[in-house]
Protein backbone atom coordinates (compact mmCIF):
# COMPACT_ATOMS: atom_id res chain seq x y z
CA UNK A 1 0.00 0.00 0.00
CA UNK A 2 1.22 3.46 -0.77
CA UNK A 3 3.01 4.95 2.21
CA UNK A 4 0.90 8.07 2.30
CA UNK A 5 -2.26 6.04 2.59
CA UNK A 6 -0.91 4.05 5.49
CA UNK A 7 -0.15 7.32 7.20
CA UNK A 8 -3.62 8.63 6.61
CA UNK A 9 -5.22 5.49 7.92
CA UNK A 10 -3.11 5.71 11.05
CA UNK A 11 -4.38 9.22 11.57
CA UNK A 12 -8.05 8.37 11.29
CA UNK A 13 -8.82 7.70 14.98
CA UNK A 14 -7.22 10.95 16.08
CA UNK A 15 -8.93 12.87 13.33
CA UNK A 16 -12.31 11.39 14.17
CA UNK A 17 -12.08 12.46 17.77
CA UNK A 18 -10.85 15.93 16.88
CA UNK A 19 -13.67 16.39 14.43
CA UNK A 20 -16.26 15.30 16.90
CA UNK A 21 -15.03 17.49 19.72
CA UNK A 22 -14.14 20.56 17.73
CA UNK A 23 -16.35 20.85 14.71
CA UNK A 24 -19.63 19.75 16.24
CA UNK A 25 -19.47 21.94 19.37
CA UNK A 26 -18.22 24.96 17.45
CA UNK A 27 -21.07 24.60 15.01
CA UNK A 28 -23.47 24.32 17.91
CA UNK A 29 -21.98 27.37 19.60
CA UNK A 30 -22.14 29.44 16.43
CA UNK A 31 -25.74 28.42 15.91
CA UNK A 32 -26.86 29.20 19.44
CA UNK A 33 -24.94 32.44 19.63
CA UNK A 34 -27.40 33.92 17.17
CA UNK A 35 -30.36 32.99 19.31
CA UNK A 36 -31.65 33.78 22.75
CA UNK A 37 -31.91 30.16 23.80
CA UNK A 38 -33.48 30.06 27.21
CA UNK A 39 -33.36 26.64 28.83
CA UNK A 40 -35.81 27.48 31.55
CA UNK A 41 -38.51 28.88 29.33
CA UNK A 42 -37.60 26.52 26.50
CA UNK A 43 -37.95 29.32 24.02
CA UNK A 44 -35.50 29.94 21.25
CA UNK A 45 -35.62 32.85 18.84
CA UNK A 46 -33.27 34.05 16.22
CA UNK A 47 -32.00 37.42 17.35
CA UNK A 48 -29.26 38.09 14.88
CA UNK A 49 -26.05 39.52 16.13
CA UNK A 50 -27.49 41.25 19.16
CA UNK A 51 -25.64 38.91 21.53
CA UNK A 52 -22.37 40.05 20.01
CA UNK A 53 -23.32 43.67 20.29
CA UNK A 54 -24.22 43.11 23.90
CA UNK A 55 -20.79 41.61 24.41
CA UNK A 56 -19.03 44.78 23.33
CA UNK A 57 -20.64 46.85 26.03
CA UNK A 58 -20.63 44.22 28.75
CA UNK A 59 -18.92 45.97 31.60
CA UNK A 60 -18.96 42.82 33.67
CA UNK A 61 -16.82 41.13 31.07
CA UNK A 62 -14.37 44.00 31.01
CA UNK A 63 -14.14 43.98 34.79
CA UNK A 64 -13.55 40.27 34.74
CA UNK A 65 -10.75 40.63 32.23
CA UNK A 66 -9.14 43.37 34.32
CA UNK A 67 -9.35 41.28 37.44
CA UNK A 68 -7.91 38.32 35.59
CA UNK A 69 -4.96 40.41 34.43
CA UNK A 70 -4.27 41.61 37.96
CA UNK A 71 -4.49 38.08 39.26
CA UNK A 72 -2.18 36.86 36.51
CA UNK A 73 0.39 39.54 37.24
CA UNK A 74 0.45 38.66 40.91
CA UNK A 75 0.37 34.90 40.57
CA UNK A 76 2.94 34.74 37.81
CA UNK A 77 5.46 37.06 39.42
CA UNK A 78 5.15 35.25 42.74
CA UNK A 79 5.66 31.85 41.19
CA UNK A 80 8.50 32.94 38.91
CA UNK A 81 10.48 34.43 41.77
CA UNK A 82 9.80 31.55 44.14
CA UNK A 83 10.42 28.90 41.51
CA UNK A 84 13.73 30.39 40.43
CA UNK A 85 14.90 30.70 44.02
CA UNK A 86 13.99 27.06 44.60
CA UNK A 87 15.90 26.00 41.50
CA UNK A 88 18.98 27.90 42.61
CA UNK A 89 18.76 26.31 46.03
CA UNK A 90 18.59 22.80 44.63
CA UNK A 91 21.37 23.52 42.19
CA UNK A 92 23.53 24.61 45.13
CA UNK A 93 22.47 21.71 47.26
CA UNK A 94 25.00 18.94 47.75
CA UNK A 95 23.28 16.40 49.94
CA UNK A 96 19.80 15.07 49.36
CA UNK A 97 19.23 16.86 46.10
CA UNK A 98 16.93 14.25 44.67
CA UNK A 99 14.79 14.04 47.79
CA UNK A 100 14.30 17.76 48.09
CA UNK A 101 13.68 18.15 44.40
CA UNK A 102 10.96 15.50 44.60
CA UNK A 103 9.41 17.29 47.56
CA UNK A 104 9.47 20.57 45.67
CA UNK A 105 7.55 19.19 42.73
CA UNK A 106 4.94 17.37 44.79
CA UNK A 107 2.44 20.24 44.53
CA UNK A 108 2.23 19.56 40.80
CA UNK A 109 0.73 16.15 41.44
CA UNK A 110 -2.17 17.43 43.51
CA UNK A 111 -5.45 18.03 41.68
CA UNK A 112 -6.32 21.72 41.58
CA UNK A 113 -9.71 21.02 43.17
CA UNK A 114 -8.03 19.61 46.21
CA UNK A 115 -5.51 22.43 46.27
CA UNK A 116 -8.43 24.83 46.42
CA UNK A 117 -10.10 22.83 49.16
CA UNK A 118 -6.92 22.51 51.20
CA UNK A 119 -6.20 26.22 51.14
CA UNK A 120 -9.82 27.11 51.70
CA UNK A 121 -9.59 25.08 54.85
CA UNK A 122 -6.18 26.37 55.95
CA UNK A 123 -7.00 30.01 55.27
CA UNK A 124 -10.44 29.81 56.81
CA UNK A 125 -11.16 32.60 59.23
CA UNK A 126 -12.43 30.54 62.13
CA UNK A 127 -11.07 27.05 61.74
CA UNK A 128 -8.04 27.65 59.57
CA UNK A 129 -4.63 26.72 60.88
CA UNK A 130 -2.96 29.74 59.25
CA UNK A 131 -5.25 32.14 61.05
CA UNK A 132 -4.73 30.28 64.28
CA UNK A 133 -1.02 30.74 63.81
CA UNK A 134 -1.44 34.45 63.04
CA UNK A 135 -3.49 34.87 66.16
CA UNK A 136 -0.94 33.08 68.29
CA UNK A 137 1.95 35.23 67.13
CA UNK A 138 -0.02 38.38 67.74
CA UNK A 139 -0.93 39.59 64.25
CA UNK A 140 -4.54 38.53 64.59
CA UNK A 141 -6.78 36.66 62.24
CA UNK A 142 -7.13 37.75 58.63
CA UNK A 143 -10.34 37.29 56.62
CA UNK A 144 -8.57 36.02 53.53
CA UNK A 145 -11.73 35.33 51.63
CA UNK A 146 -13.82 38.06 53.13
CA UNK A 147 -12.26 41.13 51.61
CA UNK A 148 -11.82 41.68 47.86
CA UNK A 149 -8.15 42.68 47.94
CA UNK A 150 -7.25 39.91 50.32
CA UNK A 151 -9.12 37.41 48.19
CA UNK A 152 -7.12 38.48 45.15
CA UNK A 153 -3.94 38.04 47.12
CA UNK A 154 -4.99 34.72 48.57
CA UNK A 155 -6.02 33.25 45.22
CA UNK A 156 -2.78 34.43 43.64
CA UNK A 157 -0.84 32.85 46.47
CA UNK A 158 -2.67 29.57 46.06
CA UNK A 159 -2.13 29.60 42.31
CA UNK A 160 1.56 30.08 42.87
CA UNK A 161 1.80 27.00 45.06
CA UNK A 162 1.83 24.56 42.13
CA UNK A 163 2.99 27.35 39.85
CA UNK A 164 6.30 27.80 41.61
CA UNK A 165 6.83 24.05 41.52
CA UNK A 166 6.45 24.21 37.75
CA UNK A 167 8.85 27.13 37.38
CA UNK A 168 11.26 25.29 39.64
CA UNK A 169 11.08 22.20 37.47
CA UNK A 170 11.69 24.04 34.23
CA UNK A 171 14.45 26.25 35.64
CA UNK A 172 16.26 23.34 37.21
CA UNK A 173 16.01 21.45 33.93
CA UNK A 174 17.59 24.50 32.39
CA UNK A 175 20.43 24.62 34.88
CA UNK A 176 21.11 20.95 34.47
CA UNK A 177 21.27 21.25 30.72
CA UNK A 178 24.31 23.47 30.97
CA UNK A 179 27.46 21.42 30.50
CA UNK A 180 29.38 21.13 33.73
CA UNK A 181 32.63 22.24 32.14
CA UNK A 182 31.30 25.67 31.35
CA UNK A 183 30.36 26.17 34.98
CA UNK A 184 33.74 24.89 36.07
CA UNK A 185 35.53 27.12 33.59
CA UNK A 186 33.78 30.14 35.02
CA UNK A 187 34.58 29.11 38.57
CA UNK A 188 38.23 28.50 37.71
CA UNK A 189 38.41 31.93 36.16
CA UNK A 190 37.39 33.27 39.55
CA UNK A 191 33.74 34.05 39.07
CA UNK A 192 31.88 34.77 42.26
CA UNK A 193 28.57 33.07 42.80
CA UNK A 194 26.72 36.21 41.88
CA UNK A 195 28.65 36.57 38.65
CA UNK A 196 28.23 32.92 37.86
CA UNK A 197 24.49 33.17 38.03
CA UNK A 198 24.00 36.57 36.48
CA UNK A 199 26.49 36.27 33.65
CA UNK A 200 26.63 32.59 32.86
CA UNK A 201 23.76 30.49 34.09
CA UNK A 202 20.74 32.73 33.66
CA UNK A 203 21.67 34.01 30.22
CA UNK A 204 22.14 30.43 29.09
CA UNK A 205 18.72 29.31 30.22
CA UNK A 206 16.76 32.19 28.76
CA UNK A 207 14.76 29.84 26.59
CA UNK A 208 13.71 27.80 29.60
CA UNK A 209 12.70 30.91 31.51
CA UNK A 210 10.61 32.11 28.60
CA UNK A 211 8.83 28.77 28.47
CA UNK A 212 8.22 28.87 32.22
CA UNK A 213 6.87 32.40 32.00
CA UNK A 214 4.67 31.64 29.03
CA UNK A 215 3.10 28.57 30.55
CA UNK A 216 2.61 30.28 33.87
CA UNK A 217 0.75 33.07 32.13
CA UNK A 218 -1.40 30.61 30.22
CA UNK A 219 -2.16 28.49 33.26
CA UNK A 220 -3.05 31.42 35.48
CA UNK A 221 -5.29 32.74 32.73
CA UNK A 222 -7.17 29.47 32.65
CA UNK A 223 -7.36 29.16 36.44
CA UNK A 224 -10.60 27.61 37.49
CA UNK A 225 -10.73 24.57 39.73
CA UNK A 226 -8.99 25.99 42.78
CA UNK A 227 -10.56 29.43 42.46
CA UNK A 228 -14.00 27.92 42.12
CA UNK A 229 -13.52 25.86 45.25
CA UNK A 230 -12.08 28.68 47.32
CA UNK A 231 -14.23 31.65 46.45
CA UNK A 232 -16.52 30.78 43.54
CA UNK A 233 -15.83 34.29 42.31
CA UNK A 234 -16.44 36.04 45.58
CA UNK A 235 -16.54 37.99 47.75
CA UNK A 236 -18.97 39.72 45.48
CA UNK A 237 -17.20 39.59 42.16
CA UNK A 238 -13.70 40.17 43.43
CA UNK A 239 -12.25 36.91 42.19
CA UNK A 240 -14.46 36.37 39.18
CA UNK A 241 -11.69 35.70 36.73
CA UNK A 242 -12.43 34.96 33.13
CA UNK A 243 -12.97 31.20 33.48
CA UNK A 244 -15.31 31.68 36.41
CA UNK A 245 -17.12 34.45 34.61
CA UNK A 246 -17.68 32.26 31.56
CA UNK A 247 -18.96 29.42 33.69
CA UNK A 248 -21.28 31.69 35.63
CA UNK A 249 -22.66 33.20 32.44
CA UNK A 250 -23.08 29.80 30.89
CA UNK A 251 -25.16 28.53 33.72
CA UNK A 252 -27.24 31.58 34.05
CA UNK A 253 -30.08 29.93 32.28
CA UNK A 254 -31.46 33.09 30.81
CA UNK A 255 -28.41 33.47 28.71
CA UNK A 256 -27.22 30.33 26.97
CA UNK A 257 -27.17 32.14 23.63
CA UNK A 258 -25.11 34.90 25.12
CA UNK A 259 -22.77 32.37 26.70
CA UNK A 260 -22.18 30.81 23.31
CA UNK A 261 -21.47 34.19 21.77
CA UNK A 262 -18.98 34.85 24.56
CA UNK A 263 -17.37 31.49 23.96
CA UNK A 264 -16.99 32.12 20.24
CA UNK A 265 -15.42 35.52 20.72
CA UNK A 266 -12.96 34.25 23.29
CA UNK A 267 -12.08 31.31 21.06
CA UNK A 268 -11.35 33.63 18.15
CA UNK A 269 -9.28 35.97 20.26
CA UNK A 270 -7.22 33.15 21.71
CA UNK A 271 -6.72 31.52 18.32
CA UNK A 272 -5.21 34.73 17.06
CA UNK A 273 -3.02 34.82 20.14
CA UNK A 274 -1.93 31.25 19.49
CA UNK A 275 -0.98 32.13 15.91
CA UNK A 276 1.02 35.11 17.10
CA UNK A 277 2.80 33.08 19.75
CA UNK A 278 3.71 30.34 17.33
CA UNK A 279 5.24 32.87 14.98
CA UNK A 280 7.10 34.51 17.81
CA UNK A 281 8.51 31.30 19.17
CA UNK A 282 9.32 30.08 15.69
CA UNK A 283 7.55 26.80 16.11
CA UNK A 284 5.96 26.35 12.76
CA UNK A 285 8.86 24.85 10.90
CA UNK A 286 7.82 21.26 10.89
CA UNK A 287 9.56 18.78 8.71
CA UNK A 288 7.09 18.03 5.99
CA UNK A 289 9.04 15.56 3.93
CA UNK A 290 8.62 11.91 4.54
CA UNK A 291 7.59 8.66 3.01
CA UNK A 292 5.19 8.88 0.15
Amino acid at each position, binding site marked *: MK*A*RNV*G*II*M*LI*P*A*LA*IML*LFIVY*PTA*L*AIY*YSFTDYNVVKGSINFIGASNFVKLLSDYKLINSITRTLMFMALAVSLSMVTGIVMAV*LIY*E*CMLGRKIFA*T*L*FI*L*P*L*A*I*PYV*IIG*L*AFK*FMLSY*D*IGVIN*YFLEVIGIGRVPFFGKPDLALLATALVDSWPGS*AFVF*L*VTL*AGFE*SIPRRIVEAALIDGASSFRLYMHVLFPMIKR*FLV*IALLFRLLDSF*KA*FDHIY*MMTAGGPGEATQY*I*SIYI*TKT*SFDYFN*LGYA*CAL*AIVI*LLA*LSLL*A*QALIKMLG*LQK*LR*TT*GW*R
Partner: protein
Amino acid sequence: MGWNIIQVKRIMRSAVVYILIAVFAAWAIFPIYWIASMSFTPRSEIFSEHPEFLHSFTIENYINLFTSARPVTAALLNSTLIASLTTLIVIVIASLSGYALARFEIKYKNNFYFFVFATRIIPPAVFVVPYYIMYTNLKLYDTVPGMILAYTFINLPFAMWLMRQFFEEIPRSYEEAALIDGCSYFGTFIRVAIPLSLPVITAVGIFTFMMTWNEFLFALILTRYKALTYTAVLPGFFGERRIEWDLITPLSTIAIIPPIVFAILARKYLVRGLTAGLVR
Protein backbone atom coordinates in the same frame (compact mmCIF):
# COMPACT_ATOMS: atom_id res chain seq x y z
CA MET B 1 44.32 26.65 64.60
CA GLY B 2 40.68 26.63 63.93
CA TRP B 3 38.91 27.29 60.68
CA ASN B 4 40.00 29.92 58.25
CA ILE B 5 37.64 32.46 56.79
CA ILE B 6 37.06 30.57 53.58
CA GLN B 7 35.79 27.50 55.38
CA VAL B 8 33.58 29.54 57.63
CA LYS B 9 32.06 31.25 54.61
CA ARG B 10 31.44 27.93 52.98
CA ILE B 11 29.75 26.51 56.02
CA MET B 12 27.57 29.56 56.46
CA ARG B 13 26.60 29.44 52.83
CA SER B 14 25.64 25.78 53.09
CA ALA B 15 23.70 26.51 56.24
CA VAL B 16 21.72 29.25 54.54
CA VAL B 17 21.01 27.01 51.58
CA TYR B 18 19.79 24.16 53.72
CA ILE B 19 17.69 26.35 55.96
CA LEU B 20 15.99 27.90 52.98
CA ILE B 21 15.49 24.51 51.42
CA ALA B 22 13.81 23.38 54.61
CA VAL B 23 11.54 26.40 54.51
CA PHE B 24 10.51 25.80 50.92
CA ALA B 25 10.11 22.10 51.50
CA ALA B 26 7.80 22.87 54.38
CA TRP B 27 5.83 25.20 52.14
CA ALA B 28 5.56 22.53 49.47
CA ILE B 29 4.55 19.78 51.85
CA PHE B 30 2.49 21.48 54.50
CA PRO B 31 -0.90 21.60 52.75
CA ILE B 32 -0.60 17.93 51.85
CA TYR B 33 0.47 17.04 55.35
CA TRP B 34 -2.29 19.13 56.88
CA ILE B 35 -5.09 17.58 54.86
CA ALA B 36 -3.83 14.08 55.58
CA SER B 37 -3.35 14.87 59.24
CA MET B 38 -6.81 16.41 59.58
CA SER B 39 -8.34 13.34 58.00
CA PHE B 40 -7.22 11.38 61.02
CA THR B 41 -8.46 13.98 63.49
CA PRO B 42 -11.69 13.71 65.40
CA ARG B 43 -14.45 15.88 64.00
CA SER B 44 -14.69 18.15 66.97
CA GLU B 45 -11.05 19.08 66.69
CA ILE B 46 -11.26 19.74 62.97
CA PHE B 47 -13.86 22.41 63.51
CA SER B 48 -12.32 23.96 66.57
CA GLU B 49 -10.55 27.26 66.47
CA HIS B 50 -7.45 25.84 68.06
CA PRO B 51 -6.05 23.10 65.91
CA GLU B 52 -3.66 20.89 67.80
CA PHE B 53 -0.58 19.63 66.12
CA LEU B 54 -0.48 16.58 68.31
CA HIS B 55 -4.05 15.56 68.07
CA SER B 56 -5.69 12.28 68.84
CA PHE B 57 -5.63 9.74 66.08
CA THR B 58 -8.86 8.33 64.74
CA ILE B 59 -10.20 6.82 61.58
CA GLU B 60 -13.79 7.77 62.25
CA ASN B 61 -13.76 10.23 59.35
CA TYR B 62 -12.93 7.51 56.89
CA ILE B 63 -15.70 5.33 58.27
CA ASN B 64 -18.16 8.20 58.14
CA LEU B 65 -17.10 8.95 54.59
CA PHE B 66 -17.82 5.50 53.30
CA THR B 67 -21.01 5.05 55.25
CA SER B 68 -22.39 8.43 54.30
CA ALA B 69 -25.11 8.63 51.72
CA ARG B 70 -22.68 9.90 49.13
CA PRO B 71 -21.56 7.70 46.21
CA VAL B 72 -17.94 7.78 47.33
CA THR B 73 -16.86 4.24 46.46
CA ALA B 74 -18.62 4.36 43.12
CA ALA B 75 -16.99 7.68 42.35
CA LEU B 76 -13.51 6.44 43.20
CA LEU B 77 -14.05 3.33 41.12
CA ASN B 78 -15.28 5.42 38.24
CA SER B 79 -12.27 7.65 38.46
CA THR B 80 -9.94 4.67 38.36
CA LEU B 81 -11.76 3.05 35.48
CA ILE B 82 -12.06 6.20 33.43
CA ALA B 83 -8.48 7.28 34.01
CA SER B 84 -7.07 3.85 33.16
CA LEU B 85 -9.08 3.32 29.99
CA THR B 86 -8.45 6.85 28.80
CA THR B 87 -4.73 6.36 29.30
CA LEU B 88 -4.78 3.17 27.28
CA ILE B 89 -6.74 4.68 24.43
CA VAL B 90 -4.68 7.84 24.37
CA ILE B 91 -1.44 5.86 24.22
CA VAL B 92 -2.67 3.83 21.27
CA ILE B 93 -4.07 6.72 19.28
CA ALA B 94 -1.23 9.08 20.10
CA SER B 95 1.44 6.59 19.01
CA LEU B 96 -0.38 5.88 15.77
CA SER B 97 -0.92 9.50 14.86
CA GLY B 98 2.39 10.73 16.27
CA TYR B 99 4.19 8.22 14.09
CA ALA B 100 2.11 9.09 11.07
CA LEU B 101 2.88 12.77 11.47
CA ALA B 102 6.54 12.14 11.99
CA ARG B 103 7.15 9.74 9.17
CA PHE B 104 4.73 10.26 6.35
CA GLU B 105 4.34 13.13 4.00
CA ILE B 106 0.93 14.50 4.73
CA LYS B 107 -0.45 17.88 3.89
CA TYR B 108 -1.57 20.36 6.53
CA LYS B 109 0.74 19.00 9.16
CA ASN B 110 1.58 22.52 10.22
CA ASN B 111 -1.92 23.13 11.37
CA PHE B 112 -1.16 20.52 13.94
CA TYR B 113 1.19 22.80 15.89
CA PHE B 114 -1.42 25.47 15.97
CA PHE B 115 -3.98 23.03 17.19
CA VAL B 116 -1.90 21.66 20.05
CA PHE B 117 -0.97 25.14 21.15
CA ALA B 118 -4.55 26.32 20.99
CA THR B 119 -5.73 23.55 23.28
CA ARG B 120 -3.15 24.64 25.81
CA ILE B 121 -4.29 28.25 25.67
CA ILE B 122 -8.05 27.99 25.67
CA PRO B 123 -9.76 27.74 29.05
CA PRO B 124 -11.89 24.59 29.18
CA ALA B 125 -14.70 26.72 30.58
CA VAL B 126 -15.21 28.05 27.07
CA PHE B 127 -16.34 24.65 25.84
CA VAL B 128 -18.73 23.96 28.66
CA VAL B 129 -22.03 24.97 27.09
CA PRO B 130 -21.50 23.44 23.64
CA TYR B 131 -20.22 20.20 25.14
CA TYR B 132 -23.16 19.96 27.49
CA ILE B 133 -25.58 20.39 24.61
CA MET B 134 -23.64 18.01 22.38
CA TYR B 135 -23.47 15.33 25.02
CA THR B 136 -27.15 15.56 25.73
CA ASN B 137 -27.93 15.28 22.02
CA LEU B 138 -25.66 12.30 21.54
CA LYS B 139 -26.91 10.59 24.70
CA LEU B 140 -23.37 10.58 26.08
CA TYR B 141 -24.28 12.64 29.12
CA ASP B 142 -23.49 11.01 32.43
CA THR B 143 -22.00 7.90 30.84
CA VAL B 144 -18.61 6.37 31.50
CA PRO B 145 -17.79 5.93 27.79
CA GLY B 146 -18.77 9.55 27.33
CA MET B 147 -16.29 10.65 29.95
CA ILE B 148 -13.56 8.44 28.50
CA LEU B 149 -14.15 10.01 25.11
CA ALA B 150 -14.01 13.52 26.50
CA TYR B 151 -10.81 12.89 28.41
CA THR B 152 -9.25 11.22 25.39
CA PHE B 153 -9.91 14.37 23.45
CA ILE B 154 -8.44 16.54 26.18
CA ASN B 155 -5.22 14.55 26.42
CA LEU B 156 -4.72 13.62 22.81
CA PRO B 157 -3.08 16.81 21.47
CA PHE B 158 -0.36 16.84 24.09
CA ALA B 159 0.22 13.10 23.83
CA MET B 160 0.43 13.28 20.06
CA TRP B 161 2.93 16.09 20.37
CA LEU B 162 5.16 14.07 22.66
CA MET B 163 5.03 10.96 20.50
CA ARG B 164 5.65 12.88 17.30
CA GLN B 165 8.59 14.68 18.89
CA PHE B 166 10.11 11.38 19.87
CA PHE B 167 9.56 9.63 16.57
CA GLU B 168 11.17 12.49 14.70
CA GLU B 169 14.33 11.91 16.65
CA ILE B 170 14.69 8.22 15.88
CA PRO B 171 16.92 7.75 12.86
CA ARG B 172 14.97 6.36 9.97
CA SER B 173 17.69 3.87 9.25
CA TYR B 174 16.22 1.35 11.65
CA GLU B 175 12.90 1.34 9.92
CA GLU B 176 14.41 1.51 6.49
CA ALA B 177 16.41 -1.58 7.29
CA ALA B 178 13.20 -3.33 8.19
CA LEU B 179 11.48 -2.04 5.08
CA ILE B 180 14.23 -3.30 2.87
CA ASP B 181 13.86 -6.68 4.47
CA GLY B 182 10.25 -6.74 3.37
CA CYS B 183 8.40 -5.40 6.36
CA SER B 184 5.28 -3.36 5.72
CA TYR B 185 5.04 0.27 6.82
CA PHE B 186 2.69 -0.61 9.61
CA GLY B 187 4.88 -3.55 10.50
CA THR B 188 7.88 -1.33 11.06
CA PHE B 189 5.72 0.80 13.28
CA ILE B 190 4.82 -2.14 15.47
CA ARG B 191 8.13 -3.94 15.46
CA VAL B 192 10.66 -1.12 15.37
CA ALA B 193 9.18 2.18 16.49
CA ILE B 194 7.06 1.03 19.40
CA PRO B 195 9.72 -0.98 21.23
CA LEU B 196 12.09 1.95 20.94
CA SER B 197 9.54 4.34 22.33
CA LEU B 198 8.63 2.62 25.56
CA PRO B 199 10.07 5.39 27.78
CA VAL B 200 8.04 8.04 26.00
CA ILE B 201 4.97 5.87 26.12
CA THR B 202 5.45 5.59 29.85
CA ALA B 203 5.73 9.35 30.15
CA VAL B 204 2.60 9.84 28.08
CA GLY B 205 0.76 7.23 30.11
CA ILE B 206 1.69 8.73 33.45
CA PHE B 207 0.86 12.20 32.33
CA THR B 208 -2.48 11.23 30.83
CA PHE B 209 -3.49 9.27 33.89
CA MET B 210 -2.66 12.14 36.19
CA MET B 211 -4.43 14.71 34.04
CA THR B 212 -7.55 12.60 33.81
CA TRP B 213 -7.54 11.64 37.46
CA ASN B 214 -7.23 15.28 38.50
CA GLU B 215 -9.75 16.75 36.12
CA PHE B 216 -12.66 18.68 37.57
CA LEU B 217 -14.68 20.90 35.25
CA PHE B 218 -15.81 18.31 32.72
CA ALA B 219 -16.50 15.83 35.50
CA LEU B 220 -18.72 18.41 37.10
CA ILE B 221 -20.56 19.39 33.94
CA LEU B 222 -20.92 16.14 32.11
CA THR B 223 -21.88 13.76 34.90
CA ARG B 224 -24.83 13.47 37.22
CA TYR B 225 -25.35 10.13 38.88
CA LYS B 226 -23.83 7.22 37.05
CA ALA B 227 -20.54 8.51 35.77
CA LEU B 228 -19.50 10.59 38.77
CA THR B 229 -15.81 10.81 39.46
CA TYR B 230 -14.45 11.68 42.87
CA THR B 231 -13.79 15.26 41.73
CA ALA B 232 -17.45 15.70 40.85
CA VAL B 233 -18.45 14.42 44.26
CA LEU B 234 -16.33 16.91 46.18
CA PRO B 235 -18.52 20.01 45.76
CA GLY B 236 -21.37 17.96 47.17
CA PHE B 237 -19.77 18.30 50.58
CA PHE B 238 -20.50 22.01 50.67
CA GLY B 239 -23.54 22.03 52.84
CA GLU B 240 -26.09 24.72 53.47
CA ARG B 241 -24.70 25.83 56.75
CA ARG B 242 -21.22 24.41 56.88
CA ILE B 243 -18.65 22.57 54.83
CA GLU B 244 -18.12 18.96 55.79
CA TRP B 245 -14.38 19.09 56.17
CA ASP B 246 -14.47 15.92 58.20
CA LEU B 247 -15.56 14.06 55.07
CA ILE B 248 -13.62 16.09 52.54
CA THR B 249 -10.25 15.47 54.15
CA PRO B 250 -10.37 11.66 54.05
CA LEU B 251 -11.63 11.66 50.47
CA SER B 252 -8.91 14.11 49.46
CA THR B 253 -6.24 12.09 51.20
CA ILE B 254 -7.28 8.94 49.37
CA ALA B 255 -7.56 10.79 46.08
CA ILE B 256 -4.11 12.30 46.16
CA ILE B 257 -2.33 9.01 46.75
CA PRO B 258 -2.20 7.82 43.10
CA PRO B 259 -0.86 11.07 41.63
CA ILE B 260 1.68 11.46 44.43
CA VAL B 261 2.90 7.90 43.93
CA PHE B 262 3.25 8.53 40.22
CA ALA B 263 5.05 11.79 40.81
CA ILE B 264 7.55 10.19 43.13
CA LEU B 265 8.20 7.09 41.04
CA ALA B 266 8.27 8.81 37.73
CA ARG B 267 9.86 12.13 38.43
CA LYS B 268 11.98 12.25 35.36
CA TYR B 269 9.05 11.35 33.15
CA LEU B 270 7.19 14.32 34.59
CA VAL B 271 10.02 16.61 33.64
CA ARG B 272 10.00 15.27 30.14
CA GLY B 273 6.27 15.58 29.89
CA LEU B 274 6.04 19.08 31.22
CA THR B 275 8.87 20.58 29.25
CA ALA B 276 7.62 18.64 26.24
CA GLY B 277 10.48 19.07 23.90
CA LEU B 278 9.85 22.76 23.65
CA VAL B 279 13.34 23.31 24.86
CA ARG B 280 16.17 21.59 23.22
